């Protein structure tokens, strides 16, 4: 019997150990035998005799394997196995229903929106409910960070663009509404009117995307005509019987 056969016999008894633990046992035993053989070689033994003596000194590999197995409680393996099976079952059950798959997708979108919100073009590309074709605003774009609590929801306005849209100077803000708790449903009533207003009172009902597509996150494009000298547009909505006003500043460069 050589070193690798000895280790293989020990490892054949280690059923409760993970692959990593088994490899650690193998390495440790091989290192021990290497030390012993080297010591005998230093004493003048030839290689074959040194290996034979070392194997004899190591003892019965079956006994070592059985004793080693006893040191690793079965409970962990059983618990880990049960947890794995349960997890697979839960995941499989969740994914087996198209409703659940959709809800998981919605929740994921609502989380991603908080970290990496979509640009106006991405919002427009995802719109399935709009009355006219989307014409992008080409001009100056800037980050803004305006947050308002609406009950359990958060309205976040994160991007403002000012420029030409089909021959009209327009300001377009990108925003989203999501529940404070990731995965929670947006509770802001879908029938509530949201108005965007220029500084001269020109009003426009905003385009919204997601109100029907994703109940956990809405994307909004807030758009109003602007003129040189304007420094903001205004969002208005009703909440608990009162009109809430949010001024959205235009980029510092102003209206071109």
């Amino acid at each position: 019997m050589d070193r690798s056969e000895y280790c293989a016999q020990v490892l054949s008894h280690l059923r409760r150990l993970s692959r990593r633990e088994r490899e650690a046992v193998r390495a440790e035993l091989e290192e021990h035998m290497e030390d012993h053989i080297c010591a005998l070689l230093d004493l003048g033994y030839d290689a074959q005799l040194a290996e034979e003596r070392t194997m004899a000194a190591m003892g019965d590999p079956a006994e070592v394997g059985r004793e080693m197995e006893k040191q690793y409680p079965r409970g962990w393996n059983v618990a880990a196995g049960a947890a794995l099976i349960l997890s697979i079952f839960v995941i499989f059950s969740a994914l087996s229903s198209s409703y659940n798959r959709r809800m998981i997708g919605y929740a994921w979108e609502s989380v991603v929106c908080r970290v990496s919100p979509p640009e106006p073009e991405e919002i427009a590309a995802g719109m399935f409910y709009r009355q006219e074709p989307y014409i992008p605003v080409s001009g100056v774009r800037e980050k803004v960070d305006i947050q308002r609590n609406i009950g359990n929801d958060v309205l976040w306005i994160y991007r403002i663009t000012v420029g030409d849209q089909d021959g009209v100077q327009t300001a377009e803000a990108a925003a989203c509404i999501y529940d404070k708790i990731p995965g929670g449903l947006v509770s802001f009533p879908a029938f509530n009117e949201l108005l965007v207003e220029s500084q001269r009172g020109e009003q426009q009902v905003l385009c919204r995307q997601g109100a029907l597509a994703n109940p956990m996150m809405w994307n909004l494009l807030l758009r109003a005509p602007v003129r040189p000298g304007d420094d903001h547009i205004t969002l208005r909505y009703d909440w608990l019987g009162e009109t809430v006003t949010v001024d959205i500043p235009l980029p510092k460069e102003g209206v071109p």
Partner: protein
Amino acid sequence: MRKKQQIEHTPLLVLSLLAVEDMYGYQMILELARRSNRTFDMKEGTLYPVLHGLEQQGYVEAYRQEAPTGRVRKYYHLTKKGGEALRTESESWRRYSGAVDAVLRSSALGLA
């Protein structure tokens, strides 16, 4: 009847070795044979179930380090929990061996 000792003899000896310094397996075998004047000449492979058992119980912890031979080896270190177990079991063992010795001495006097 004496309460059963919680730690068997070999683990107790291993903990005792590690109380002095961190060691790897082969080093422990040599040191055990040297200190016991080769009385504890155990089968070397059986040391490892003992070490892994002590590790599972939290009495020792292991790390890899280069040995004086230049080869990297798995060293074992006595933990605080292991140190406390060693103190308790050493005291228990001394009482036990003292009692056996006392009985043997009184029997020897009777034979004389």
